[in-house]
């Protein structure tokens, strides 16, 4: 596997000196981060390192206190989440957040909301164009669910009735339904067994190769990270303490220290 340096290729997503403070607490401090197009990159770090806060800034839920976020050549700093999603950045959540009382298929249809045009009056009158759009969106939902491997017989089940692994699939399908350029996955293998994690790892590569989607991953499972990432950024206490390819990062004393404590890092050297 090639360990591309982050300077290769056009950056689709780039942050410059991004900082987020909540009152006196600095959750993310001065993080610059670059994601080349069609790459798979990871953000790792111990619990509370600021990874999810960082994701929330990328997707517009938090406005950075300082710093600039650029996506596909446009500054999106402080933009609204739905607008950022429409530009082509979709995400999943650490604790799955499906629309519980909607079916798997309807969940994926909501994911296409930003690609639809039907308005209030068009929906009431149900113009031919709206009708056609509904049909297309429904078909696309079925395609996406099949793409992530959800059995057809489960497509019309309520999301809460699905098994955990299937809920993860639906959440990814919902994010994919908008044909994003970048997909942010927040701990997608949490709660999965090793076999399921392997499947997901393979699936991420497939997404990148078949659909050209750039993937940014927050993950704890080292096997997944080392197996799939081309580039890894390590956060600890909100600061970027290391970055590079998997082998570099694995050997970095600061990373070992952050994960295992100072003594362990001394012993390792």
């Amino acid at each position, binding site marked *: 596997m090639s360990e591309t340096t982050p300077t290769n290729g056009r950056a689709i997503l780039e942050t410059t000196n991004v900082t987020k403070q909540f009152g006196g607490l600095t959750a993310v401090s001065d993080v610059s981060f670059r994601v080349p197009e069609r790459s798979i990159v990871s953000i790792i770090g111990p619990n509370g390192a600021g990874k999810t806060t960082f994701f929330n800034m990328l*997707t517009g*839920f938090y406005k950075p206190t300082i710093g600039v976020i650029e996506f596909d050549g446009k500054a999106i700093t402080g933009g*609204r*989440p*739905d607008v950022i*999603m*429409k530009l082509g950045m*979709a*995400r999943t*959540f650490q604790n799955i*957040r*499906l*629309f*519980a*009382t*909607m*079916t798997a*298929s*309807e969940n994926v*249809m*909501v*994911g296409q*909301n*930003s*690609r*639809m045009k*039907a*308005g*209030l009056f068009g*929906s*009431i*009158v*149900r113009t031919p164009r*709206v009708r056609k*759009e*509904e049909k297309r*969106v429904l078909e696309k939902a079925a395609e996406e669910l099949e793409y992530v491997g959800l*059995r057809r*017989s*489960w497509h*019309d*089940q*309520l999301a*809460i*009735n699905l*098994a955990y692994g299937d809920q993860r699939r639906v959440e990814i399908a*919902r*994010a994919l339904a*908008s044909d994003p350029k970048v997909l942010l996955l927040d701990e997608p293998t949490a709660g999965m067994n090793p076999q399921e994690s392997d499947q997901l790892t393979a699936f991420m590569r497939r997404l990148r190769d078949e659909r050209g989607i750039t993937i940014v991953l927050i993950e704890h499972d080292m096997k997944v990270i080392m197996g799939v990432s081309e580039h890894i950024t390590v956060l600890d206490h909100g600061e970027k303490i290391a970055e590079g390819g998997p082998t570099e990062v694995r050997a970095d004393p600061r990373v070992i220290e952050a994960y295992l404590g100072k003594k362990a890092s001394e012993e390792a050297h």
Partner: protein
Amino acid sequence: MSAPADEPAAAAAPAPPGKTGMSRRSELPWWVEKILVPVVFLLFATMLPFFFDPGSAFISTCALALAYTVMALGLNIIVGFAGLLDLGFVAFYAIGAYTIGWLGSGFFSQVGNEEGWHIFVSGFAETQPGIHVNFLLVLVAALVFTTIAGMLIGLPTLRLRGDYIAIVTLAFGEIIGRAAVNGDELKLSGFPIVGGGLENVFGPDQTITAGRQGITPVDKVDLPGMDPFKSLEQRPWYWLALAMVAVVLFVNFRLRDSRLGRAWIALREDEVAAVSMGVPAVKTKLLAYGTGAAFGGFAGAYLGSKNNTVNGDQFQFFFSIFILGMVILGGLGSIWGTVLGAITLTFINFELLPRMSDWPSKVGLDFDVSEINFGIYGFLLVIMMIMRPQGLLPERRRKMELTEDAETTDDTLYTARA
């Protein structure tokens, strides 16, 4: 009455993988929900007045029930679909009612040199002073006014959730209600800047509302090609209300199964996820408030004309709860449930309770049942929440969800004892 659905389908949910899961429509097949029930309901409802006297009080109550159904269906969009708990729906009733009070009565008696303004009206109203606008145009005006009011109330609630939305909407309903009662003290000529201009048009003593005295009489509904309605002939009132219900039902179904309906339900289920999936929260919520309010305004304009008065006392907090009770009784988010809830509560309020009014005296008690109406609704709702928390005709989604909970939580292992 229970839902006419095939119950066993619900049990299929935790089916082993490979077995066919429950079909999306199997709870109520689409043709039952959208063709059979509406056709039967509308046919029956259309024929109903022929079995009663033209001036029957019963048909009048039925017309009232239908008007309340229109309101409840509007509130169901806000509370049931979008999940925004609105305790001030009476505001939209008030605004709709005042629309016809202002535009269809002798209230503004000074306009047009005391001869009045008349726009597409015929018969008696044409000869009267004041502003008299055709009922259909009044509906359009009510639509515009209430939609604007709906969005105005929506704006301050956009950053709020749950209970806080309830408090803000409650306050809004109270403000409108108080303004209606005390509007007879407010003179148009007293307004800053525009007061002088208003005085020239409306006269020096013109007030905003007639307070507790009420604006009366109000123009009877006047549809093109027909004579204006009469108060002793109840059938046309009934059929008009039925037609309004039919239109509002149609709009409700179309919206529920559309991009917008899905966005409402997604916001209700998980706002963060909905927004991150590209649902614009502000626009989507405002559309819910706006559409729901518009239906409240339609019904308000109709009721103003039917009641022949627009009185500040009609717009009290209890009315918001009355309509909300209909939605909850029927099943939050369920369209047919809301219709059933509205009809049930109206009949309890206007037919059943009045008939019970002398019961206490028969057993030697000295009070009137109408004094404890609220206690009776409260009791009904409590019973309802215990026996059937999902409502009389629950929304398909909630029904599936609640059935599921009962099965998966192993509640048979432990039963709470009183």
